[in-house]
């Protein structure tokens, strides 16, 4: 599927001169009326991928050059940012809230009792702030810990803007317990090594160009004993009948809801295709292990895990639609 020629999603479009250079609709209209854009000499050259850097990666079912993936994902999320939470509710019929609550409750952020320093949490690809909000609420209300701090990081400024809107002038913002950082998860140089207690990424890692680099950055920024936790969709359900129904919902209803509610079928088509491309639970657990993490979980439940001296490493949610993977940085 997918167009080979420029398509016209609601807010963004490909410029006519360069099929790989994305700009937003306002910028394109502005350019169309300035004199420089109409003269052929000053027309911008499209950013051509280097000949020697011919490495490709997947963008949904499309294959594109690695250098372009981040900007194409960026375009998708800039487009979906304003309806992100509404669309999540419609696509998962509200179940995403239960997943996120379960995720946060399982991590139990916040430390009871007196401490000199508060816990530092880093929420990656957490633009709209729903995980960060839950973390702070849980720490404050359940563990009575008013010093936990969350840094919300996202590569996309529009998503981060939604997060800033959510926190507005809330008590957490005023108490300086929440921070916003625009960064690529593959390059967290703004964050010191061994400074984070808990690194979380919910429904973000499947969009990264290089998951292994992101995992290594996670390893670097975590303190020894720190926890890496990832909530993500799985590519297949274990039950084939349920998988058939689930896939038909994903590929039929979700792009349709995207078209009707958000006016953007293609972004939602990308989202469901990117789920297909994500590694399975066991494969992803192995990637986490390769980054240097210890894999928790009950030995013996997963035979392979038990044999390798590590735990299962993940738990399935909702019959395997999503999974929570965890890793611990060795002390």
């Amino acid at each position, binding site marked *: *599927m997918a167009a*080979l020629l420029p*398509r016209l999603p609601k807010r963004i479009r490909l410029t006519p001169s360069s099929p790989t250079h994305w700009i937003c609709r306002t910028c394109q209209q502005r350019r169309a009326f300035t004199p420089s854009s109409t003269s052929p000499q000053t027309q911008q050259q499209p950013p051509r991928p280097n000949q020697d850097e011919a490495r490709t990666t997947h963008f949904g079912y499309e294959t594109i050059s690695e250098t372009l993936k981040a900007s194409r994902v960026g375009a998708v999320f800039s487009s979906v940012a304003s309806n992100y939470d509404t669309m999540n509710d419609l696509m998962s019929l509200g179940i995403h809230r239960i997943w996120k609550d379960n995720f946060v409750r399982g991590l139990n952020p916040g430390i009871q009792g007196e401490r000199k320093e508060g816990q530092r949490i880093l929420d990656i690809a957490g633009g709209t702030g729903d995980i960060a909000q839950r973390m702070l609420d849980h720490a404050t209300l359940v563990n009575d810990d008013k010093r936990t701090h969350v840094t919300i990081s996202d590569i996309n400024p529009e998503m981060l803007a939604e997060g800033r809107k959510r926190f507005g002038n809330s008590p957490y913002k005023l108490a300086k317990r929440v921070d916003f950082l625009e960064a690529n998860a593959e390059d967290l140089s703004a964050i010191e090594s061994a400074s984070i207690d808990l690194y979380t990424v919910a429904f973000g890692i499947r969009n990264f160009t290089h998951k292994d680099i992101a995992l290594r950055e996670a390893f670097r920024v975590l303190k020894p004993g720190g926890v890496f936790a990832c909530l993500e969709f799985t590519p297949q359900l274990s039950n084939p009948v349920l998988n058939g129904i689930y896939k*038909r919902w994903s*590929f*039929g209803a979700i792009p349709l809801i995207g078209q*009707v509610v958000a*006016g953007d079928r293609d972004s939602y088509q990308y989202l469901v295709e990117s789920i297909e491309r994500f590694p399975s639970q066991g494969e992803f657990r192995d990637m986490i292990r390769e980054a240097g993490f210890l894999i928790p979980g009950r030995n013996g439940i997963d035979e392979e895990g038990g044999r390798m001296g590590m735990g299962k490493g993940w738990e399935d949610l909702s019959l395997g639609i999503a999974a929570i993977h965890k890793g611990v940085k060795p002390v």
Partner: protein
Amino acid sequence: MRATTPSSLTRLLALPSPLRVRTFSVLSRPPPNYPGHIPLTIPERLSLAAGSAIGSLFNPYRHDLIASLGETTAKPYFLSRLHRAMLNNPTGRRILRDRPRITSKSMKLEELRHMPENSVGRAYAAWLDREGVTPDTRDAVRYIDDPEEAYVMQRYRETHDFTHAITGLPVIIEGELAVKAFEFANTLLPMTALSLVAIVRLKKVERQRFFEVYMPWALRNGLKAEEVINVYWEEELETDVEVLRARLGIEKPPDLRDIRKALREQKRKEREAKEAAG
């Protein structure tokens, strides 16, 4: 994506289009017939039609929903009828052969503004300026399977503004409904009739005016006029508007903006008189 289809299905697929039943699922869509094409299954088409109808009623600025409503309701009969109407006319046939597209590049406003007084091009540019819109690229057709019928739909969409220009109807909801009523009588596309449901959004005075003046004008003229889809607009830019209207058989409707302005003036005078007296 999915594996091979069984042979009985393959034989079904080999039948000609009217006899063939849709045998694909959302997991194994057939390859696109033109760039941007998305083949839809019947439940998808029905859901999209229903969703677009409700969505565009609540938010008439969602032009993409109006577009998808048009595409999902135009088949099986109506778009084919319009296509045949084009094929029955020599100019229509030329348009289908040339496949011209109306974009902000092909319709340069600067040139159009300097065209002879009262020409179609000048009227078009004047109308765009008056209403504050651009010959913006319209949404591309995606849900029609046949490439030529998809072009017919695209052409209808792109020439909608020309219909506005030669009738002089404004972009406000009343004007749009009048144009849609005219297009329904002229092209028979279901979306144009369905969009008349937006009459519920009109104020009482506007609704009365619509039923008294504009709807009768639209239906009368849409039926007796030539098929507007067959007008080669790119060649008619220098034609005199009156001549074109006479050729097509369209009367000019009363100027809606003038009527509304006169009404506003009248109300303002009445209010001032009341304030002066009371």
